[in-house]
């Protein structure tokens, strides 16, 4: 079966520094694939190349078999690639419902429509409200997004992504900077998405990664040194020395 996302020999250098060194991995349909690695391993550069904000020097990215390597971020989004940002990006002056309705609008016909009031488009609002309920923000639909707590903004980002009905969801450190309770709530939310869509999860919280991931790829100095199930990664000697060893002493 064609993988939902296929990354082949992705290479990117900044001057003499090879930040992505022939990175190769596949994400199967419905799989939650985590990318872990120590600071400076090139995780952020990788997600920039996956989402389309940075062009690779060489290599290929395919989504459901279609080459998307040269496509812009909006073009990838329209094909079904959604993402959250490491520093949350929401439309702060909009209500939650408006934020999510805009994501529905992006895939529901032309936005070069000038006459009909968008706030009264029931089809957009209904789907947006549904996505907000899914992430647990159903009660806050009329709130202004800028007034949300950090964790709630993360939830909103996921609602925006879900409203796009994506094939692949990139989550860039969704638990970073959240408190214990918020972190647990987000983990439960992400666990609930498993199987419904393919997810690439970049995350520092090892406990969450090992609990959530179907497979994990370990990135060290721009290279994938191992890919496998959580038990395989835990048992991998190379990973232990390069990365996990630091924590387990």
């Amino acid at each position, binding site marked *: 079966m064609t993988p939902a996302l296929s990354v082949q020999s992705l290479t990117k250098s900044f001057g003499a520094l090879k930040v992505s060194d022939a990175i190769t991995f596949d994400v199967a349909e419905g799989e939650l694939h985590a990318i872990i690695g120590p600071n400076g391993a090139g995780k952020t550069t990788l997600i920039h190349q996956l989402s389309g904000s940075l062009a690779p020097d060489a290599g290929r990215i395919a989504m459901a078999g279609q080459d998307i390597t040269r496509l812009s971020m909006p073009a990838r989004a329209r094909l079904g690639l959604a993402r959250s940002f490491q520093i949350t990006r929401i439309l702060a002056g909009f209500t939650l419902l408006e934020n999510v309705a805009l994501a529905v*609008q992006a895939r529901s016909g032309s*936005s070069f429509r000038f006459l009909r009031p968008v706030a009264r488009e029931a089809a957009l609002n209904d789907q947006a409200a549904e996505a907000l309920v899914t992430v647990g923000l159903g009660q806050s639909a009329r709130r202004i997004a800028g007034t949300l707590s950090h964790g709630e903004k993360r939830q909103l980002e996921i609602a925006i992504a879900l409203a796009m009905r994506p094939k692949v969801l990139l989550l860039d450190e969704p638990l970073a900077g959240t408190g214990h309770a918020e972190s647990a709530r987000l983990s439960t939310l992400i666990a609930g998405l498993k199987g419904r869509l393919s997810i690439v999860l970049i995350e520092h919280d090892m406990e969450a990664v090992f609990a959530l991931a179907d497979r994990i790829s370990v990135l060290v100095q721009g290279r994938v040194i191992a890919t496998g199930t959580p038990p395989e990664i835990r048992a991998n000697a190379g990973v232990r020395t390069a990365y996990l060893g630091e924590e387990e002493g």
Partner: protein
Amino acid sequence: MIGSDRAMLILLAVVAVLPPVLSALGEPFLTVILSRALIFATAALSLDLILGFGAMVSFGHAAYLGIGAYAAGILAANGLTGLEVQVPVALAAAGVFALVTGAISLRTSGVHFIMITLAFGQMAFFLMTSLSAYGGDDGQALAAPSTLFGIAVFDGAARFFYATLAVLALAWLGLRTITRSRFGRVLAGTREDPARMQAMGFSPFGYRLTAYVISGMVAALAGVLLANHAAYISPSYMSWARSGELIAMVALGGMGTLTGPVLGALAFVLAEEALAKLTTHWRLPFGAAVVLAVLFTRGGLMGALSRTRGRK
């Protein structure tokens, strides 16, 4: 936004009854000044679409006023006084100028965008000063007032006043509709966070450029009125200082509210007239007043208005 609509309707209603009142008070000339304020209100309204809703700080918006004025002036000089010809020509000229300069300017952002729109505004300014057949530097008198299918719709101060009021009301209704549409929501989204919009699948460029063109065309409509108001066309309509004044009107009134820039323009033009009567050095206190108003009324006059209403 409901409050903003009500404020605008009250404003239009109050302004509409002023001409007979002013005549009764023996100040008919104030109707003429008020007409001028309404023309700038229309121009400020058009700027709000790109500045307030699209976060595009255009420092060349006066160029569109000038394009509208020169379209009317050049056609009138050649015997075509009908608005049925002048308005389409003004809209087309402004639309093409906005499309070309916008397509280039919108490849930049921030200070670069401000500078490049200023540069295009200056280009238009110097183009008009070089039109020696139409007065060059000095400009020239409008050959004849515009008509509509042969009817002298601009004849007399009161008629002209109501014509400008009608144009303002139509521009407000039109822009109000656009800003609440699908298109308007995307435009406001690009103001809030362009990267988020791209991640949703929107390419901001096309939406921004469309807004830029619409904005320029509405400003050109104000320009046609301006030429008739002064009965004169002059390159000074499109000076960079005028572009700055338009930005000040929008900021003073409250960006992204539509009603605010109309209030801002009325306050700006009327205060300018009042201060100019008191002292020849009126620009100094006037500048200070604008700065203070913007600093101390968060969200401009419209922001101050909604706060006082909220306190009740």
